[in-house]
């Protein structure tokens, strides 16, 4: 067993544990910190696949910027422990079947992939920063620019909504 397999199982397990802790924790700050743990572990998994740029961006954007805002808001509101409510009827009747279906689908996909036993061979060159840049600005330039326009609209919308309340 190579070092990368050990690392994969360690950080994969850490990501799953973090995700579980995110749901189970009662305090919003602890939940937010668990989510950061998940994101950091995912970054390591990306790194193991050779996607170094995506790994760095995962840390900088998700863990370093978005989650900071989450924590910031929780701190500002000084939110306390969550109160347990009666589960809504929708979750009671639809939740279990949907979860079962999702698990079955994942199990089926795993089962289909199993016999081949050939993992994805990471292409070290595809994960390079320059390769990502070429793809974004040459092959997928239209979707990329469209996304940025959507984000711009969202930002303007947020400002307009916030201004109304001021």
């Amino acid at each position, binding site marked *: 067993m190579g070092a990368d397999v050990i690392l994969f199982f360690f950080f994969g397990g850490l990501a799953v544990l973090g995700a579980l802790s995110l749901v189970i924790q009662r*305090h919003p*700050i*602890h939940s937010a*910190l668990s989510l*950061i743990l998940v994101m950091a572990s995912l970054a390591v998994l990306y790194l193991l696949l050779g996607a*170094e*740029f995506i*790994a*760095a*961006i995962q*840390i*900088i954007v998700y*863990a*370093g*910027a978005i989650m*900071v*805002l989450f*924590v*910031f808001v929780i*701190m*500002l509101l000084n939110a306390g422990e969550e109160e347990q409510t009666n589960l809504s009827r929708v979750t009671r009747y639809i939740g279990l079947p949907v979860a079962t279906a999702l698990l079955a689908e994942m199990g089926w996909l795993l089962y289909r992939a199993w016999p081949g036993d050939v993992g994805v061979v990471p292409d070290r060159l595809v994960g*390079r*920063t320059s390769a990502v840049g070429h793809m974004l600005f040459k092959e997928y330039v239209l979707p990329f620019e469209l996304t940025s326009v959507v984000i711009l609209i969202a930002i303007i919308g947020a400002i307009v909504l916030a201004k109304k309340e001021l």
Partner: protein
Amino acid sequence: MTDWIANHPELVIAVVKIALLLFIFLTAIAYVVWFERKVIAHIQARWGPYRVGPHGLLQPLADGVKFLFKEDIIPANVNSRFLFLLAPFLAVTLALLAVAVIPFGPEFEIFGTTTGFYIADINIALLFVLGVTSLTVYSVALAGWSSNSKYPLLGALRSTAQMVSYELALTLSVIGVLLLAGSLSLREIVEQQSGRLWGVLPNWYIFPQFVAFICFFISSIAETNRAPFDLAEAETELVAGFHTEYSSMKFAMFFLAEYAHIFTASFLATVLFFGGWQSPFPETPFWQWTLYLPAAAAALLGLYFLLDTFRHPHSTLHRGLITLVGIALLGVGAGLALVPPVLLLVQGPFWFVLKTVAFLFVFVWIRATLPRFRYDQLMAFGWKFLLPLAVLNIIATSLLLVWQAN
């Protein structure tokens, strides 16, 4: 086990390098506190630390011992004991992590393998440093929140908002350098800066990227929460900011992290804009006299120490210590001048350290000179001046590059 070690010499070298760098870096952090106190004192026409050791040189040691023996208090009403204890550890870990990718010198050969004056040379070194520094916000936010006290919370909120705002300007100002260098590896960025500009100036990015440098330096002062942007710990308003409730070694860890960040900022400024380990002097035609500058510097410092034995009213013990240090430094100077391979080896680190110390001095100088910003001024300056300036610099640099390519 021994076979395995023999088969992996690079691992052994890495462990040795990590231990060595940690030792040197932590000592340097302790002494930069002394340096700061000394420089500020002299700017304000005082003597600064003078009692513990000659010129107060043993003051960092005394401070460390004092921190260790102070009572370690955890307030009774902390929000979360775990997070309260996690915050200082997070601060120190992240602050030390960033140094792993800084190249202090070029590659060299030792015991048959090629290695360099860095722990890791990775393709995304610059993103790594930016990512690690972006995570330091958490140590501040968690410390402030978990203390469950109003001053730390207000300090942490200010500090977080400030760090998030100036991080944008910092990151954008670096992009100009990236466009010129075409690489995210710090070692490659330094190597790109070799040679001459118009045959005279060193080919450092400070000259084509002057605007970016100004932007970078101001934002890094704000990122490290230093004066004049030290609103997070404005003692007249917030006691000490986010670490008000911390005492003893936990306080010392925040202190250590803060100075480690100042070092990281100076390292980055040196690497990105001032040619890293490259010498500022061109190659001279027959006798390469600039190679002997490290030896000369050590010898001169030794002479200064020896001269100092007579200048100030020292005790006998201090006098003996100074004489010993002076003789040792003279010996180092002579040794460097007489053993050419070692002299060549220290060239890179010598220039790197010299440039870093210059930046540290500027950091201290600014703190001693400028008054603190008001909070709205700080935010307006970051968002309405630095950020547009950095974006303009990116546009101008890219246009210039496209024009050059055609």
